[in-house]
């Protein structure tokens, strides 16, 4: 099975609403990084967490510090420009690489 399970796979919401994306890991991970991929393919880093929570404007992310087996990304007051595909990438404890989730395609509607 997949080591990183990301949900939901797709999400449509109206401007001004809130949403939450989640990644579950089948094993303990060292850290997690969240990205948004735009239509050109560029992966823009949103957060990198080794523990706890981080916030940047309308975005907030958390990484379960105890079990290190899940992470969340919250989007508050969604805007049209938030549309895109969001990926979590977990840093494998035993290898020098990250394992990506399959992405959440977010569509913000006016």
């Amino acid at each position, binding site marked *: 099975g997949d080591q990183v399970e990301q949900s939901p796979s797709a999400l449509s919401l109206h401007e001004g609403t809130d949403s939450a994306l989640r990644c579950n890991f089948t094993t303990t991970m*060292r*850290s997690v*990084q969240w*990205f948004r991929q735009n239509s*050109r*393919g*560029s*992966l823009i*880093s949103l957060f*990198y967490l080794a523990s706890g929570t981080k916030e940047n404007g309308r975005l907030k992310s958390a990484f379960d510090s105890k079990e290190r087996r899940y992470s969340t990304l919250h989007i508050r007051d969604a805007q049209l420009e938030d549309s895109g*595909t969001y*990926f979590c*990438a977990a*840093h494998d404890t035993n*290898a*020098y*690489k*990250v*394992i*990506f989730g*399959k*992405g959440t395609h977010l569509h913000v509607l006016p």
Partner: protein
Amino acid sequence: NSKVIQTPRYLVKGQGQKAKMRCIPEKGHPVVFWYQQNKNNEFKFLINFQNQEVLQQIDMTEKRFSAECPSNSPCSLEIQSSEAGDSALYLCASSLNPNSDYTFGSGTRLLVI
């Protein structure tokens, strides 16, 4: 604008042809990674380097794929004999150390026809 520079942006090759793409990591980042993203948004790790040395690579990379990160030159990923299944977005990333956050380039989109 990404601090990791990948060229070319698009690459079209016939089956059996060589395909070569380049990556300049973010300044000061000694670790470079290559990933392949297919049309289903699945990422596959290919290879990583610390300075000029390979840290890890997958079996696929050992056969038709070759990569290097020479000192004072861009890193490169080359497919010796392209196949249709190699069509994908190839992403390069760099970091300060193998376990820290990654900065990705904009990718090279390869189409093998």
